[in-house]
Protein backbone atom coordinates (compact mmCIF):
# COMPACT_ATOMS: atom_id res chain seq x y z
CA UNK A 1 0.00 0.00 0.00
CA UNK A 2 1.42 3.33 -1.06
CA UNK A 3 1.41 5.84 1.79
CA UNK A 4 -0.38 9.11 0.98
CA UNK A 5 2.60 11.34 1.55
CA UNK A 6 4.83 9.14 -0.59
CA UNK A 7 2.15 9.00 -3.28
CA UNK A 8 1.80 12.76 -3.20
CA UNK A 9 5.53 13.18 -3.49
CA UNK A 10 5.67 10.86 -6.51
CA UNK A 11 2.84 12.80 -8.18
CA UNK A 12 4.71 16.05 -7.60
CA UNK A 13 7.92 14.62 -8.97
CA UNK A 14 6.22 13.17 -12.04
CA UNK A 15 4.55 16.52 -12.70
CA UNK A 16 7.89 18.28 -12.44
CA UNK A 17 9.58 15.67 -14.64
CA UNK A 18 6.93 16.09 -17.32
CA UNK A 19 7.00 19.89 -17.18
CA UNK A 20 10.77 19.80 -17.59
CA UNK A 21 10.87 17.46 -20.56
CA UNK A 22 7.96 19.16 -22.30
CA UNK A 23 9.92 22.41 -22.00
CA UNK A 24 12.99 20.64 -23.37
CA UNK A 25 11.13 19.34 -26.41
CA UNK A 26 9.42 22.68 -27.00
CA UNK A 27 12.65 24.67 -26.81
CA UNK A 28 14.16 22.74 -29.71
CA UNK A 29 10.95 21.82 -31.58
CA UNK A 30 11.66 18.11 -31.18
CA UNK A 31 9.51 15.01 -31.46
CA UNK A 32 9.28 11.87 -29.27
CA UNK A 33 7.01 13.75 -26.88
CA UNK A 34 4.48 10.92 -26.72
CA UNK A 35 7.20 8.35 -26.01
CA UNK A 36 8.34 10.27 -22.95
CA UNK A 37 4.79 10.89 -21.69
CA UNK A 38 4.15 7.18 -22.02
CA UNK A 39 6.92 6.15 -19.62
CA UNK A 40 7.06 9.20 -17.32
CA UNK A 41 5.43 7.42 -14.37
CA UNK A 42 7.49 4.26 -14.96
CA UNK A 43 10.76 6.16 -14.79
CA UNK A 44 9.61 8.38 -11.92
CA UNK A 45 8.57 5.41 -9.81
CA UNK A 46 11.70 3.40 -10.57
CA UNK A 47 13.95 6.35 -9.71
CA UNK A 48 12.14 7.65 -6.65
CA UNK A 49 10.08 4.72 -5.41
CA UNK A 50 11.99 1.56 -6.19
CA UNK A 51 15.66 2.00 -7.03
CA UNK A 52 18.30 2.00 -4.30
CA UNK A 53 21.94 3.12 -4.32
CA UNK A 54 23.98 1.02 -6.73
CA UNK A 55 20.97 -0.18 -8.70
CA UNK A 56 20.97 0.64 -12.41
CA UNK A 57 18.36 1.85 -14.87
CA UNK A 58 18.62 0.83 -18.52
CA UNK A 59 16.23 2.79 -20.71
CA UNK A 60 16.12 0.44 -23.66
CA UNK A 61 13.58 2.68 -25.40
CA UNK A 62 16.27 5.31 -25.78
CA UNK A 63 13.99 7.53 -27.85
CA UNK A 64 12.39 8.61 -24.56
CA UNK A 65 15.75 10.01 -23.45
CA UNK A 66 14.28 13.39 -22.49
CA UNK A 67 12.14 11.65 -19.90
CA UNK A 68 15.22 9.93 -18.46
CA UNK A 69 17.26 13.15 -18.50
CA UNK A 70 14.45 14.92 -16.74
CA UNK A 71 14.18 12.23 -14.08
CA UNK A 72 17.94 12.38 -13.50
CA UNK A 73 17.74 16.17 -13.27
CA UNK A 74 14.94 15.79 -10.74
CA UNK A 75 17.27 13.51 -8.78
CA UNK A 76 20.07 16.09 -8.98
CA UNK A 77 22.27 13.96 -11.21
CA UNK A 78 22.07 16.29 -14.21
CA UNK A 79 22.41 20.05 -13.81
CA UNK A 80 19.59 22.24 -15.12
CA UNK A 81 22.22 24.12 -17.14
CA UNK A 82 23.06 20.84 -18.87
CA UNK A 83 19.37 20.17 -19.46
CA UNK A 84 19.12 23.43 -21.38
CA UNK A 85 21.61 22.04 -23.93
CA UNK A 86 19.33 19.12 -24.86
CA UNK A 87 19.23 18.37 -28.59
CA UNK A 88 21.51 21.33 -29.41
CA UNK A 89 24.94 21.28 -31.01
CA UNK A 90 27.80 20.43 -28.64
CA UNK A 91 25.51 18.75 -26.06
CA UNK A 92 25.97 15.47 -24.22
CA UNK A 93 22.19 15.17 -24.12
CA UNK A 94 21.40 13.93 -27.61
CA UNK A 95 17.96 12.72 -28.61
CA UNK A 96 19.08 9.25 -27.49
CA UNK A 97 21.20 8.58 -24.38
CA UNK A 98 24.97 9.05 -24.84
CA UNK A 99 27.96 6.82 -24.19
CA UNK A 100 30.04 7.09 -21.02
CA UNK A 101 29.06 10.63 -20.09
CA UNK A 102 26.18 10.80 -17.63
CA UNK A 103 26.04 9.22 -14.18
CA UNK A 104 22.93 7.11 -14.15
CA UNK A 105 23.18 6.20 -17.83
CA UNK A 106 25.47 3.15 -18.07
CA UNK A 107 24.96 2.62 -21.79
CA UNK A 108 23.95 4.50 -24.88
CA UNK A 109 20.62 3.17 -26.08
CA UNK A 110 18.39 3.93 -28.99
CA UNK A 111 19.03 0.96 -31.21
CA UNK A 112 16.10 -1.13 -30.09
CA UNK A 113 16.48 -4.60 -28.67
CA UNK A 114 19.78 -4.03 -26.86
CA UNK A 115 18.52 -2.95 -23.45
CA UNK A 116 17.31 -6.24 -22.09
CA UNK A 117 20.66 -7.88 -22.92
CA UNK A 118 22.47 -4.97 -21.26
CA UNK A 119 20.32 -5.50 -18.19
CA UNK A 120 20.97 -9.24 -18.33
CA UNK A 121 24.73 -8.66 -18.36
CA UNK A 122 24.57 -6.15 -15.51
CA UNK A 123 22.35 -8.53 -13.55
CA UNK A 124 24.73 -11.42 -14.16
CA UNK A 125 27.71 -9.29 -13.12
CA UNK A 126 26.02 -8.32 -9.83
CA UNK A 127 25.21 -11.98 -9.22
CA UNK A 128 28.80 -13.09 -9.91
CA UNK A 129 30.07 -10.34 -7.60
CA UNK A 130 27.46 -11.34 -5.00
CA UNK A 131 26.16 -7.78 -4.86
CA UNK A 132 22.53 -7.38 -3.92
CA UNK A 133 21.67 -4.83 -6.61
CA UNK A 134 18.78 -4.51 -9.01
CA UNK A 135 18.72 -3.65 -12.68
CA UNK A 136 15.60 -1.95 -14.01
CA UNK A 137 15.13 -2.26 -17.74
CA UNK A 138 12.42 -0.25 -19.47
CA UNK A 139 11.63 -1.48 -22.95
CA UNK A 140 9.01 -0.33 -25.37
CA UNK A 141 6.51 -2.88 -26.63
CA UNK A 142 7.47 -2.37 -30.29
CA UNK A 143 11.06 -3.41 -29.65
CA UNK A 144 9.85 -6.78 -28.47
CA UNK A 145 9.75 -7.48 -32.22
CA UNK A 146 13.55 -7.66 -32.02
CA UNK A 147 14.90 -11.19 -31.79
CA UNK A 148 17.63 -10.07 -29.42
CA UNK A 149 14.96 -9.18 -26.84
CA UNK A 150 13.86 -12.81 -26.82
CA UNK A 151 17.47 -14.01 -26.64
CA UNK A 152 17.85 -11.84 -23.56
CA UNK A 153 14.57 -13.08 -22.08
CA UNK A 154 15.73 -16.70 -22.42
CA UNK A 155 19.06 -15.81 -20.85
CA UNK A 156 17.56 -13.93 -17.89
CA UNK A 157 15.17 -16.75 -17.14
CA UNK A 158 17.77 -19.48 -17.57
CA UNK A 159 20.23 -17.77 -15.24
CA UNK A 160 17.46 -16.92 -12.77
CA UNK A 161 18.41 -13.26 -12.78
CA UNK A 162 15.76 -12.22 -10.28
CA UNK A 163 17.67 -8.96 -9.82
CA UNK A 164 16.54 -7.86 -13.28
CA UNK A 165 13.17 -6.11 -13.33
CA UNK A 166 11.82 -5.77 -16.87
CA UNK A 167 9.21 -3.06 -17.30
CA UNK A 168 7.38 -3.05 -20.61
CA UNK A 169 5.91 0.29 -21.65
CA UNK A 170 2.84 -1.31 -23.22
CA UNK A 171 1.27 1.57 -25.10
CA UNK A 172 0.18 -0.66 -27.98
CA UNK A 173 1.82 1.55 -30.60
CA UNK A 174 5.06 1.31 -32.52
CA UNK A 175 6.80 3.25 -35.28
CA UNK A 176 4.28 2.93 -38.05
CA UNK A 177 1.16 1.41 -36.58
CA UNK A 178 -0.51 -0.47 -33.74
CA UNK A 179 1.56 -3.26 -32.28
CA UNK A 180 -1.17 -5.80 -32.91
CA UNK A 181 -1.45 -4.76 -36.56
CA UNK A 182 2.29 -4.64 -37.27
CA UNK A 183 3.47 -7.77 -35.46
CA UNK A 184 1.07 -9.32 -32.99
CA UNK A 185 2.45 -9.46 -29.46
CA UNK A 186 -0.62 -10.67 -27.59
CA UNK A 187 -0.99 -12.64 -25.47
CA UNK A 188 2.18 -10.93 -24.25
CA UNK A 189 1.76 -12.00 -20.63
CA UNK A 190 1.47 -15.65 -21.64
CA UNK A 191 4.52 -15.37 -23.86
CA UNK A 192 6.64 -13.86 -21.11
CA UNK A 193 5.36 -16.43 -18.63
CA UNK A 194 6.26 -19.20 -21.06
CA UNK A 195 9.76 -17.75 -21.28
CA UNK A 196 10.12 -18.07 -17.51
CA UNK A 197 9.06 -14.72 -16.11
CA UNK A 198 6.71 -13.90 -13.27
CA UNK A 199 4.42 -11.44 -15.04
CA UNK A 200 2.61 -8.56 -13.33
CA UNK A 201 0.19 -6.41 -15.33
CA UNK A 202 -0.44 -2.91 -14.06
CA UNK A 203 -1.90 0.48 -14.95
CA UNK A 204 1.27 2.22 -16.09
CA UNK A 205 0.29 5.73 -14.99
CA UNK A 206 -0.81 4.80 -11.44
CA UNK A 207 1.77 4.84 -8.67
CA UNK A 208 -0.34 2.63 -6.41
CA UNK A 209 -0.12 -0.09 -9.04
CA UNK A 210 3.66 0.29 -9.20
CA UNK A 211 3.91 -0.01 -5.43
CA UNK A 212 1.96 -3.26 -5.53
CA UNK A 213 4.15 -4.56 -8.35
CA UNK A 214 7.25 -3.71 -6.34
CA UNK A 215 6.03 -5.77 -3.38
CA UNK A 216 5.01 -8.68 -5.58
CA UNK A 217 8.35 -8.62 -7.38
CA UNK A 218 10.22 -8.83 -4.08
CA UNK A 219 8.62 -12.21 -3.45
CA UNK A 220 9.16 -13.62 -6.93
CA UNK A 221 11.41 -16.61 -7.31
CA UNK A 222 11.55 -16.06 -11.07
CA UNK A 223 12.65 -12.89 -12.87
CA UNK A 224 9.91 -10.27 -12.99
CA UNK A 225 8.33 -8.68 -16.03
CA UNK A 226 5.92 -5.83 -15.35
CA UNK A 227 3.63 -5.08 -18.26
CA UNK A 228 2.76 -1.42 -17.73
CA UNK A 229 -0.38 -0.59 -19.67
CA UNK A 230 0.22 2.97 -20.73
CA UNK A 231 -1.07 5.59 -23.13
CA UNK A 232 1.29 6.99 -25.67
CA UNK A 233 1.16 10.76 -25.46
CA UNK A 234 -0.72 10.52 -22.15
CA UNK A 235 -2.45 13.88 -21.48
CA UNK A 236 -1.56 15.29 -24.89
CA UNK A 237 -5.21 15.04 -25.72
CA UNK A 238 -4.83 16.09 -29.37
CA UNK A 239 -2.69 13.06 -30.16
CA UNK A 240 -3.17 10.82 -27.12
CA UNK A 241 -2.98 7.16 -28.09
CA UNK A 242 -1.91 8.02 -31.62
CA UNK A 243 1.31 7.30 -33.53
CA UNK A 244 1.46 11.05 -34.28
CA UNK A 245 2.51 11.69 -30.68
CA UNK A 246 5.70 9.73 -31.39
CA UNK A 247 6.88 12.09 -34.09
CA UNK A 248 5.26 15.50 -33.93
CA UNK A 249 6.83 18.43 -32.15
CA UNK A 250 4.58 20.80 -30.22
CA UNK A 251 3.49 24.07 -31.72
CA UNK A 252 2.63 26.81 -29.19
CA UNK A 253 -1.04 25.87 -29.06
CA UNK A 254 -0.25 22.18 -28.59
CA UNK A 255 2.29 22.96 -25.89
CA UNK A 256 -0.40 24.90 -24.03
CA UNK A 257 -2.81 22.00 -24.38
CA UNK A 258 -0.45 19.35 -23.05
CA UNK A 259 0.97 21.45 -20.23
CA UNK A 260 -2.54 22.34 -19.13
CA UNK A 261 -3.57 18.71 -19.21
CA UNK A 262 -0.61 17.38 -17.23
CA UNK A 263 -1.38 19.99 -14.59
CA UNK A 264 -5.04 18.97 -14.55
CA UNK A 265 -3.98 15.31 -14.27
CA UNK A 266 -1.68 16.15 -11.38
CA UNK A 267 -4.30 18.23 -9.55
CA UNK A 268 -6.93 15.56 -10.03
CA UNK A 269 -4.70 12.75 -8.73
CA UNK A 270 -3.44 14.87 -5.88
CA UNK A 271 -6.99 15.82 -4.89
CA UNK A 272 -7.91 12.13 -4.71
CA UNK A 273 -5.35 11.75 -1.95
CA UNK A 274 -6.83 14.37 0.31
Amino acid at each position, binding site marked *: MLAKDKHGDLLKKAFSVKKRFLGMYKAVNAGHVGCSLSCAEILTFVQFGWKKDGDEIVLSKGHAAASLYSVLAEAGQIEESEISTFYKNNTYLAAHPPT*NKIKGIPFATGSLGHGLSLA*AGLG*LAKKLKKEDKKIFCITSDGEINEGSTWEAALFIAHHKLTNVIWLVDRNMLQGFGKTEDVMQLEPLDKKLEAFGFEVIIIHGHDFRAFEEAKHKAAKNEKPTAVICNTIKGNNWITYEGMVDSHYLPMKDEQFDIVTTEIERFYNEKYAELT
Partner: protein
Amino acid sequence: MRVEFAQAVISLKDTHPNLVFMTGDLGYMALEKVRDRYGDHFINAGVAEQNMVTVAASLAYEGFIPFAYSISPFVTLRPYEQIRTDVCLHDLPVKIVGNGGGYGYGIMGATHHNIEDIAIMRVLPNMRVYVPLTGSDVGEALDMMVTDPHPNYLRLNMGAKLPYEVQPFAQWRKIKSGDKGVVIGTGPVLENVANLPAEVVDGLEIWALSIFPFTEIPTELIAKINSTKKLLTIEEHQGQCGMHEALASMLLGKLEHVITFKPLYAKGYPSGRYGDQKWHQAENGIGGEGLAKDVAAFVS
Protein backbone atom coordinates in the same frame (compact mmCIF):
# COMPACT_ATOMS: atom_id res chain seq x y z
CA MET B 1 45.29 -22.82 -32.58
CA ARG B 2 42.30 -23.96 -30.50
CA VAL B 3 44.50 -26.11 -28.28
CA GLU B 4 46.92 -23.28 -27.62
CA PHE B 5 44.00 -20.94 -27.12
CA ALA B 6 42.35 -23.14 -24.50
CA GLN B 7 45.65 -23.66 -22.65
CA ALA B 8 46.38 -19.93 -22.57
CA VAL B 9 42.88 -19.02 -21.44
CA ILE B 10 43.14 -21.53 -18.60
CA SER B 11 46.52 -20.31 -17.37
CA LEU B 12 45.53 -16.62 -17.65
CA LYS B 13 42.71 -17.22 -15.19
CA ASP B 14 45.32 -17.58 -12.43
CA THR B 15 46.64 -14.07 -12.96
CA HIS B 16 43.39 -12.48 -14.12
CA PRO B 17 40.58 -13.75 -11.88
CA ASN B 18 38.18 -11.28 -13.49
CA LEU B 19 38.22 -13.20 -16.77
CA VAL B 20 34.85 -14.60 -17.83
CA PHE B 21 34.46 -17.00 -20.73
CA MET B 22 31.29 -16.90 -22.83
CA THR B 23 30.69 -19.25 -25.71
CA GLY B 24 27.92 -19.34 -28.26
CA ASP B 25 27.37 -23.04 -27.61
CA LEU B 26 30.65 -24.16 -29.17
CA GLY B 27 33.66 -25.87 -27.69
CA TYR B 28 33.01 -29.62 -27.92
CA MET B 29 36.34 -31.45 -27.54
CA ALA B 30 38.07 -28.09 -27.08
CA LEU B 31 36.77 -26.04 -24.18
CA GLU B 32 35.86 -28.66 -21.57
CA LYS B 33 38.91 -27.83 -19.46
CA VAL B 34 38.20 -24.11 -19.79
CA ARG B 35 34.69 -24.81 -18.49
CA ASP B 36 36.10 -26.77 -15.56
CA ARG B 37 38.66 -24.10 -14.68
CA TYR B 38 36.30 -21.13 -14.98
CA GLY B 39 33.38 -22.59 -13.01
CA ASP B 40 30.60 -20.02 -12.73
CA HIS B 41 32.74 -17.67 -14.82
CA PHE B 42 32.17 -19.97 -17.81
CA ILE B 43 28.88 -19.20 -19.47
CA ASN B 44 27.43 -21.05 -22.40
CA ALA B 45 25.22 -18.26 -23.70
CA GLY B 46 23.48 -20.59 -26.11
CA VAL B 47 23.07 -20.06 -29.82
CA ALA B 48 22.32 -16.39 -29.26
CA GLU B 49 25.32 -14.33 -30.24
CA GLN B 50 23.64 -10.92 -30.21
CA ASN B 51 22.69 -11.36 -26.57
CA MET B 52 26.09 -12.89 -25.76
CA VAL B 53 28.01 -9.88 -27.04
CA THR B 54 25.81 -7.35 -25.25
CA VAL B 55 25.94 -9.34 -22.02
CA ALA B 56 29.72 -9.35 -22.41
CA ALA B 57 29.65 -5.55 -22.77
CA SER B 58 27.80 -5.26 -19.48
CA LEU B 59 30.18 -7.68 -17.76
CA ALA B 60 33.08 -5.53 -18.96
CA TYR B 61 31.31 -2.41 -17.68
CA GLU B 62 31.19 -4.13 -14.28
CA GLY B 63 34.92 -4.82 -14.29
CA PHE B 64 35.14 -8.28 -15.78
CA ILE B 65 37.19 -9.16 -18.87
CA PRO B 66 34.86 -11.32 -20.92
CA PHE B 67 35.74 -13.54 -23.86
CA ALA B 68 32.93 -14.03 -26.38
CA TYR B 69 33.73 -17.10 -28.45
CA SER B 70 32.20 -18.75 -31.49
CA ILE B 71 32.89 -19.63 -35.09
CA SER B 72 34.16 -16.43 -36.67
CA PRO B 73 31.16 -15.26 -38.74
CA PHE B 74 28.72 -16.02 -35.94
CA VAL B 75 30.55 -13.85 -33.41
CA THR B 76 31.39 -10.96 -35.77
CA LEU B 77 28.96 -10.62 -38.64
CA ARG B 78 25.85 -11.77 -36.77
CA PRO B 79 26.18 -9.46 -33.74
CA TYR B 80 28.02 -6.69 -35.57
CA GLU B 81 25.82 -3.86 -34.38
CA GLN B 82 26.05 -5.11 -30.80
CA ILE B 83 29.86 -5.09 -31.13
CA ARG B 84 29.83 -1.59 -32.61
CA THR B 85 27.31 -0.03 -30.26
CA ASP B 86 27.55 -1.84 -26.94
CA VAL B 87 31.23 -2.80 -26.94
CA CYS B 88 33.20 -0.41 -29.16
CA LEU B 89 31.36 2.88 -28.72
CA HIS B 90 31.73 2.38 -24.96
CA ASP B 91 35.36 1.26 -25.37
CA LEU B 92 34.88 -1.82 -23.20
CA PRO B 93 37.49 -4.62 -22.96
CA VAL B 94 35.40 -7.37 -24.50
CA LYS B 95 37.55 -10.02 -26.20
CA ILE B 96 35.76 -11.37 -29.27
CA VAL B 97 37.25 -14.67 -30.40
CA GLY B 98 36.41 -16.03 -33.84
CA ASN B 99 37.53 -19.51 -34.69
CA GLY B 100 38.19 -20.33 -38.33
CA GLY B 101 38.85 -16.95 -39.92
CA GLY B 102 39.18 -17.10 -43.70
CA TYR B 103 38.36 -20.51 -45.15
CA GLY B 104 39.26 -22.22 -41.87
CA TYR B 105 36.10 -24.30 -41.74
CA GLY B 106 36.81 -25.65 -45.23
CA ILE B 107 34.22 -28.12 -46.45
CA MET B 108 31.71 -26.84 -43.88
CA GLY B 109 30.94 -24.27 -46.55
CA ALA B 110 30.48 -20.56 -47.06
CA THR B 111 28.23 -19.96 -44.03
CA HIS B 112 31.11 -20.99 -41.79
CA HIS B 113 33.84 -19.04 -43.57
CA ASN B 114 34.77 -15.46 -42.86
CA ILE B 115 36.73 -13.55 -45.43
CA GLU B 116 35.35 -10.18 -44.32
CA ASP B 117 36.22 -10.19 -40.62
CA ILE B 118 39.45 -8.16 -40.62
CA ALA B 119 37.78 -5.50 -42.77
CA ILE B 120 34.70 -5.07 -40.64
CA MET B 121 36.44 -5.35 -37.30
CA ARG B 122 39.43 -3.12 -37.97
CA VAL B 123 37.24 -0.13 -38.79
CA LEU B 124 35.33 -0.21 -35.50
CA PRO B 125 36.12 2.51 -32.96
CA ASN B 126 38.65 1.47 -30.28
CA MET B 127 38.90 -2.06 -31.69
CA ARG B 128 42.20 -3.88 -32.11
CA VAL B 129 42.36 -7.00 -34.25
CA TYR B 130 44.87 -9.76 -33.45
CA VAL B 131 45.81 -12.23 -36.18
CA PRO B 132 48.26 -14.86 -34.91
CA LEU B 133 50.57 -16.51 -37.40
CA THR B 134 51.69 -19.61 -35.51
CA GLY B 135 50.28 -21.70 -32.70
CA SER B 136 52.76 -20.25 -30.26
CA ASP B 137 51.58 -16.74 -31.17
CA VAL B 138 48.20 -17.41 -29.59
CA GLY B 139 49.31 -17.34 -25.96
CA GLU B 140 51.44 -14.26 -26.56
CA ALA B 141 48.59 -12.50 -28.33
CA LEU B 142 46.27 -13.34 -25.44
CA ASP B 143 48.78 -11.95 -22.95
CA MET B 144 48.56 -8.67 -24.84
CA MET B 145 44.79 -8.83 -25.16
CA VAL B 146 44.00 -9.29 -21.48
CA THR B 147 46.06 -6.23 -20.61
CA ASP B 148 44.66 -4.21 -23.51
CA PRO B 149 41.87 -2.07 -21.99
CA HIS B 150 40.09 -1.85 -25.33
CA PRO B 151 37.85 -4.13 -27.39
CA ASN B 152 39.72 -6.86 -29.27
CA TYR B 153 39.02 -9.45 -31.92
CA LEU B 154 41.17 -12.57 -32.12
CA ARG B 155 41.16 -14.46 -35.42
CA LEU B 156 42.00 -18.12 -34.83
CA ASN B 157 43.02 -20.53 -37.54
CA MET B 158 45.38 -23.46 -38.11
CA GLY B 159 48.81 -22.25 -37.00
CA ALA B 160 51.41 -21.80 -39.73
CA LYS B 161 54.36 -24.19 -39.84
CA LEU B 162 57.35 -22.19 -40.95
CA PRO B 163 60.90 -23.22 -41.82
CA TYR B 164 62.23 -20.21 -39.92
CA GLU B 165 62.55 -19.17 -36.33
CA VAL B 166 59.82 -16.64 -35.66
CA GLN B 167 60.14 -13.75 -33.22
CA PRO B 168 57.62 -13.38 -30.39
CA PHE B 169 54.18 -12.08 -31.34
CA ALA B 170 54.21 -8.42 -32.40
CA GLN B 171 52.41 -6.15 -34.82
CA TRP B 172 55.26 -6.36 -37.35
CA ARG B 173 57.79 -9.18 -37.61
CA LYS B 174 60.42 -9.90 -40.18
CA ILE B 175 60.28 -13.61 -40.92
CA LYS B 176 63.29 -13.73 -43.25
CA SER B 177 65.55 -11.39 -45.20
CA GLY B 178 65.97 -11.14 -48.95
CA ASP B 179 66.84 -8.64 -51.68
CA LYS B 180 64.68 -9.57 -54.68
CA GLY B 181 61.31 -8.44 -53.40
CA VAL B 182 59.15 -8.02 -50.30
CA VAL B 183 56.24 -10.19 -49.18
CA ILE B 184 53.86 -9.03 -46.47
CA GLY B 185 51.20 -11.37 -45.19
CA THR B 186 48.73 -11.65 -42.37
CA GLY B 187 47.80 -14.90 -40.68
CA PRO B 188 48.87 -18.47 -41.32
CA VAL B 189 48.28 -18.24 -45.08
CA LEU B 190 51.73 -16.64 -45.18
CA GLU B 191 53.15 -20.17 -44.85
CA ASN B 192 52.01 -20.83 -48.40
CA VAL B 193 54.68 -18.41 -49.57
CA ALA B 194 57.30 -19.20 -46.95
CA ASN B 195 57.19 -22.91 -47.76
CA LEU B 196 57.64 -22.55 -51.53
CA PRO B 197 60.83 -24.11 -52.98
CA ALA B 198 64.09 -22.48 -51.90
CA GLU B 199 64.89 -21.18 -55.38
CA VAL B 200 61.69 -19.09 -55.24
CA VAL B 201 61.82 -18.01 -51.61
CA ASP B 202 65.51 -17.40 -51.16
CA GLY B 203 65.46 -13.92 -52.67
CA LEU B 204 62.32 -12.78 -50.80
CA GLU B 205 62.11 -10.72 -47.69
CA ILE B 206 59.03 -11.86 -45.75
CA TRP B 207 57.17 -9.87 -43.11
CA ALA B 208 54.10 -10.70 -41.04
CA LEU B 209 51.55 -8.10 -39.98
CA SER B 210 49.51 -9.33 -37.03
CA ILE B 211 47.68 -6.44 -35.34
CA PHE B 212 45.16 -4.04 -36.92
CA PRO B 213 44.76 -1.18 -37.30
CA PHE B 214 48.35 -0.11 -37.77
CA THR B 215 49.61 3.44 -37.88
CA GLU B 216 53.22 2.87 -38.87
CA ILE B 217 55.27 0.69 -41.16
CA PRO B 218 58.77 -0.16 -39.92
CA THR B 219 61.44 2.04 -41.50
CA GLU B 220 63.48 -1.02 -42.40
CA LEU B 221 60.53 -2.48 -44.27
CA ILE B 222 59.83 0.74 -46.19
CA ALA B 223 63.50 0.92 -47.14
CA LYS B 224 63.41 -2.65 -48.43
CA ILE B 225 60.29 -1.99 -50.50
CA ASN B 226 62.01 1.06 -52.00
CA SER B 227 65.22 -0.81 -52.74
CA THR B 228 63.59 -3.93 -54.26
CA LYS B 229 60.75 -1.99 -55.91
CA LYS B 230 58.59 -5.08 -55.49
CA LEU B 231 55.81 -5.82 -53.02
CA LEU B 232 53.58 -8.89 -52.90
CA THR B 233 50.87 -9.19 -50.24
CA ILE B 234 48.92 -12.25 -49.20
CA GLU B 235 45.84 -12.53 -47.04
CA GLU B 236 43.11 -15.10 -46.59
CA HIS B 237 40.59 -12.33 -46.74
CA GLN B 238 38.72 -10.51 -49.44
CA GLY B 239 40.56 -7.71 -51.19
CA GLN B 240 38.46 -4.72 -50.30
CA CYS B 241 39.23 -3.21 -46.91
CA GLY B 242 41.60 -6.01 -46.00
CA MET B 243 45.32 -5.84 -45.29
CA HIS B 244 46.61 -4.79 -48.68
CA GLU B 245 44.28 -1.81 -49.05
CA ALA B 246 45.26 -0.56 -45.61
CA LEU B 247 48.90 -1.10 -46.48
CA ALA B 248 48.62 0.64 -49.84
CA SER B 249 47.14 3.77 -48.32
CA MET B 250 49.84 3.81 -45.63
CA LEU B 251 52.56 3.46 -48.25
CA LEU B 252 51.37 6.50 -50.21
CA GLY B 253 53.93 9.19 -49.77
CA LYS B 254 56.55 6.75 -48.53
CA LEU B 255 57.54 5.27 -51.89
CA GLU B 256 60.51 6.66 -53.77
CA HIS B 257 59.78 4.87 -57.06
CA VAL B 258 57.00 3.24 -58.97
CA ILE B 259 56.95 -0.31 -57.62
CA THR B 260 55.49 -3.62 -58.70
CA PHE B 261 52.57 -4.28 -56.40
CA LYS B 262 51.00 -7.74 -56.45
CA PRO B 263 48.17 -8.17 -53.94
CA LEU B 264 46.92 -11.74 -53.47
CA TYR B 265 43.65 -12.19 -51.64
CA ALA B 266 40.46 -14.23 -51.46
CA LYS B 267 37.91 -13.70 -54.21
CA GLY B 268 35.19 -15.76 -52.54
CA TYR B 269 33.74 -18.71 -54.43
CA PRO B 270 34.71 -18.31 -58.10
CA SER B 271 33.53 -21.78 -59.15
CA GLY B 272 30.73 -22.12 -56.61
CA ARG B 273 32.30 -25.38 -55.45
CA TYR B 274 33.61 -26.27 -52.02
CA GLY B 275 36.58 -28.07 -50.56
CA ASP B 276 38.97 -28.01 -47.63
CA GLN B 277 40.84 -24.88 -46.58
CA LYS B 278 43.83 -25.60 -48.82
CA TRP B 279 41.49 -26.22 -51.76
CA HIS B 280 39.85 -22.80 -51.29
CA GLN B 281 43.24 -21.16 -50.92
CA ALA B 282 44.36 -22.74 -54.19
CA GLU B 283 41.18 -21.74 -56.00
CA ASN B 284 41.76 -18.16 -54.90
CA GLY B 285 45.42 -18.02 -55.84
CA ILE B 286 46.58 -17.70 -52.24
CA GLY B 287 47.85 -21.26 -52.16
CA GLY B 288 48.71 -24.15 -54.47
CA GLU B 289 50.14 -23.97 -57.97
CA GLY B 290 48.67 -20.61 -58.89
CA LEU B 291 50.43 -19.00 -55.98
CA ALA B 292 53.69 -20.78 -56.78
CA LYS B 293 53.57 -19.42 -60.34
CA ASP B 294 52.66 -15.91 -59.23
CA VAL B 295 55.46 -15.77 -56.66
CA ALA B 296 58.00 -17.22 -59.10
CA ALA B 297 57.03 -14.61 -61.69
CA PHE B 298 57.19 -11.92 -59.03
CA VAL B 299 60.75 -12.83 -58.03
CA SER B 300 62.09 -13.24 -61.55
